[in-house]
């Protein structure tokens, strides 16, 4: 049973897919309900896994490995050569990402109530997207990872292009092309590794790259390792995104439907960080180490660049988009710090930003539903007509600017803690961003909620209501509980981070 649990988890949205597919097109209510129910099995399964973890079960008992593909006819050399197995596995890091995925997916499914048309197609794609995301975080080999990685790409393309705002098609194209380039680079790197070593298993590759394995056909030279490490970094930097690869993400944030941006900012971007940790850092620790300065540099650049640009945007969605770039810069900074504090901070930042961005975009969705605009100059004084909404918005803004007691602080603090140890100069430049973050977040949030506004027609019962409290409260609760007791999250990560640090050569 345990062995199949992970596969069950990954493919459990299929149940929802079947249910939604069987519904007639017009049944809006039922489809929405089924769509939401479809996200529940993975949610419960992930909770179950989590409870197993906390009750002390070793996560490795959930690993599964089935023979799948064998390329070429080279059995005579080694029966495992050029084979790709269907192997899923779990460790603390992936457990956390899986939880993030399932929770945000369920909440985004709720937020999808705002979707106005073609619910059936929407939920089908939505659930496929969830399979892809779950698969990415559990895949134990690179090919499988890549397959799931691309599996997130296609549904997201359609979801953005079909259900987004006005310039949605352009946004979905830019999403496709940038991510296409990213995954192309990734694919090349994966395949060079595969072709040269005959395996794509992450653990085996880590072993070979760090210890130096026997090369069967052609060796991987030192400079090629650099190239591969760089390729992984670039591929995931596009996904993350890091300056200067960010322009697609701005469009997507601005044009995609808010419920999809919840997923996108909440989980999809995080695949970039996950990839850097797993592949850049995991497989090529030596090379990664020597690239650390560059990584931090680009982290700081994105952090400041995003912050400065967020300062002058007039569309709230764009403010959030640039703030995401800025926050992803923090992730890069942490990952480049090369010490426990930095790396753990980066992972925290990933999770924290996932929760915060999801909440913010849920609120954006709620706002757009009511006012029909997200342009800052048109908004204002919402605290009067929508006090609860404004309260959440403010809380969320505070979380985003790294207020202690909320998850954002822990991550920013740890990243800077780590960075001041390894790259004090860049860290010192980076702290400017902390002030800027406060400036742009407050500017945007206060333009919306404070002050007065005469142009908006206020209606009765505008405020958040009923089911809308579920996502907001759950997300805010998570943000605060991580902020108040970070060991909640830190615990599962210890094992993974220790292994990373060992490979990186101690502290």
């Amino acid at each position, binding site marked *: 049973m345990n062995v199949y649990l992970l596969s069950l988890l990954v493919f459990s949205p299929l149940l929802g897919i079947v249910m939604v597919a069987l519904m007639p097109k017009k049944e809006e209510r039922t489809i929405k309900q089924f769509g939401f129910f479809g996200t529940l099995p993975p949610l419960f399964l992930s909770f179950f896994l989590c409870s197993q973890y906390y009750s002390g079960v070793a996560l490795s008992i959930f690993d599964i490995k089935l023979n799948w593909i064998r390329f070429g006819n080279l059995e005579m050399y080694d029966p495992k050569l050029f084979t790709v197995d269907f192997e899923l596995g779990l460790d603390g890091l992936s457990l956390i990402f899986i939880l993030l995925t399932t929770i945000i997916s369920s909440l985004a499914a709720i937020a999808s109530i705002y979707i106005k048309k073609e619910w059936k197609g929407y939920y089908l794609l939505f659930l496929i997207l969830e399979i892809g995301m779950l698969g990415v975080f559990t895949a134990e080999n690179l090919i499988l990872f890549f397959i799931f990685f691309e599996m997130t790409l296609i549904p997201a393309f359609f979801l953005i292009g079909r259900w987004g705002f006005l310039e949605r098609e352009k946004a979905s194209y830019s999403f496709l092309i940038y991510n296409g380039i990213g995954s192309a680079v990734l694919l090349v790197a994966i395949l060079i590794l595969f072709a040269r070593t005959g395996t794509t298993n992450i653990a085996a590759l880590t072993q070979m790259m760090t210890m130096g394995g026997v090369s069967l056909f052609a060796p991987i030279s030192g400079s090629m390792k650099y190239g591969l490490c760089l390729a992984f970094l670039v591929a995931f930097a596009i996904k993350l995104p890091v300056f200067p690869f960010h322009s697609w993400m701005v469009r997507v944030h601005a044009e995609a439907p808010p419920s999809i941006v919840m997923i996108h900012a909440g989980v999809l971007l995080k695949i970039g960080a996950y990839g850097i940790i797993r592949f850049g850092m995991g497989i090529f620790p030596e090379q990664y180490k020597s690239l650390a300065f560059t990584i931090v540099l680009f982290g700081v650049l994105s952090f400041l660049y995003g912050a400065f640009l967020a*300062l002058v945007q007039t569309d709230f969605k764009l403010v959030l988009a640039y703030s995401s770039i800025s926050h992803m810069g923090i992730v890069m900074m942490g990952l480049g710090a090369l010490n426990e504090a930095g790396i753990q901070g980066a992972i925290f930042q990933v999770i924290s930003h996932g929760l915060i961005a999801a909440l913010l975009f849920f609120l954006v969705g709620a706002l757009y539903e009511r006012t029909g605009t997200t342009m800052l100059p048109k908004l204002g004084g919402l605290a*009067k007509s929508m006090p609860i909404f404004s309260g959440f918005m403010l809380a969320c803004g505070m979380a985003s600017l790294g207020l202690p007691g909320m998850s954002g602080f822990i991550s920013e603090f740890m990243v800077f803690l780590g960075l001041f140890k390894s790259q004090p100069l860049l860290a*010192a430049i980076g702290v400017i961003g902390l002030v*800027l973050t*406060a*400036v742009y977040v*407050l500017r945007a949030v206060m333009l919306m909620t404070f002050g007065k506004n005469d142009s908006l027609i206020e209606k009765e019962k505008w405020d958040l209501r009923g089911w809308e409290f579920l996502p907001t409260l759950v997300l805010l609760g998570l943000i605060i509980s991580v902020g108040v007791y970070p*060991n909640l999250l830190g615990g599962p990560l210890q094992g993974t981070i220790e292994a990373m640090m060992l490979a990186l050569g101690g502290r």
Partner: protein
Amino acid sequence: MMEHAWLIPIFPLVTFLVLLLSGGRLRDRGAFIGIICTLASFVLSLLVLIERFKEPTYNISIDWLSFGGTQLSAGFEINQLNALMLVVVSLVSLLVQIYSKGYMKGEVRFSIFYAYLGFFTFAMLGLVMAPNLLQLYIFWELVGVGSFLLIGFYFYKLEAKAAAKKAFIMTRIGDVGLLIGIILLFWETGSFEYGEIFQAVQSGMISSEKLTLIAILIFIGAVGKSGQFPLHTWLPDAMEGPTPVSALIHAATMVAAGVYLVAAMFPLFMASSAAMQVVAITGGITAIFAASIAMVQKDVKRVLAYSTISQLGFMMLALGTSGYVAGVFHLMTHAFFKALLFLAAGSVIHAIHTQDMEKMGGLWRKLNWTGPLFLTGTLAISGFPLLSGFFSKDEILMAAWENGSYILFGLAVVTSFLTAFYMFRLFFMMFAGDSRSQAEQVKESPFIMLIPMLALALLAVIGGYIQTPWFGTFLGEWLVEGNEALLGASHSEGPVWIMLMAVLVSLAGIYLAYMIYVKKKLSREWLVKENSEVFRILENKYYIDEIYHFTAGYAIKGFSIFLSYIERFIVGGLVSTVTSSIEGLGKVGSKLQTGQVQQYGMIAFLGLAVLLVIFAVTGGYLR
């Protein structure tokens, strides 16, 4: 009792959560929840303080965040300073909440106001109880948020909005300094715990340059929070918040957190004379600088705000000149009399609905309670003999003198003259002379507002007697008990003439104000002409706001706009160059496709020819 001290901040947090979750439904009843919870905190703090007199420092912590081999912990500590601060904070908070019941009556978001107050009190108490720097930083920021929320309480007022934002951002700048400071300190000492840090500092394992850098960075945090020059500009603007808030946050507690921080980190500062110098000089400059501005302001609350800045400067000056006890002592007495002043000013504002001094006057007869109360506060702050301010200010002057910083001593003396002058200017303009108010009916504030003021007035009078040159230096001895080496002497000794001079100086200030504003013997323009350059500079607060606006503000905005051009033309341009070049290639490709079959053949033949020529020329050795 001390093991239950963690409940002290929890009570106000409960207020916050209950009131927030209840929405606006509790209305005025929200006040009772707030007051009862704060009362509980106060009683508990008092018990803890009493117990602390006998017992040693109490410290408990749990693992909070672990990374690698490092465990960061969270917990609380009850030492002398903490225990004292707990009482001060919870007391002032309690009194202000009682006061607000009357002051905020009729406000729509009444219970939200109490919720915010609860949140702030929680954060402030948490800050005081923190056993380590990280936890201190956490609550440090949270009090900032509390302050932000309360300044922006009237969210629909544009000034309140701007003030709240400014307060948050200016203090945030300081906070970043503090953050860097504690991070650097962590890497030097391997801990955030006070005890371990002080041990490391004393063992001399940190180089003195590093130590100075860290101390100054931490001090930057204090500068931001305590409204010291040059990050002071937010504090006067913060007066846009409701007056009780000004009393609680911007006079008694939060702004004192900077002083508290320096006091809490005193051993660290002691280890670096350069850092001490910086603290003292900043304090001295701020004190006289703010006092000079306060002399010409027209808004009651602004005068009080600048007075607060000035007094905080005093405290910094004390700390910077090794006057640990003096600084903490003044912090305490200031909390009482400045809270009193604000509440009394609030009472006046409540009565005549204006904050402009020019429109007041002759209120002494109309406000029978408020007038004397305000006078008590004014006398206390002016250093009138035998009131609390007298003793604490004296202690500061002594400390400065003893430390040998005569210039700073001189600054302090001048400042106390100015203080007496502008405070009595304020008092006389409000209460003396004829009424200039348009308000027809001026009613004394309700009883519920007077009680807290009475309590504070009492404290402002007697608060000083715990540390006097005559009846013993109880406070000082208790504070430095067991830490003499780290914190210095329990009492500053100095020549007697200092005390006499201080009395004379403040009396001179009062007399001058009396002559100008009551007797009108001296023209108002006796000192500076109303439209002279100096006056204008003072009135415009040395143009600091404008300077910030035109330098930092414009620079950031300009750079942002510059970057948005980069975003559009360079980053975007790069992308469009690639796409358009691919499209161009496509265009060329399809142009070649003319539909002429012979041309196709020709191109093919050319292709063949090229291949053959290359092969022929290279002889097949092309690789």
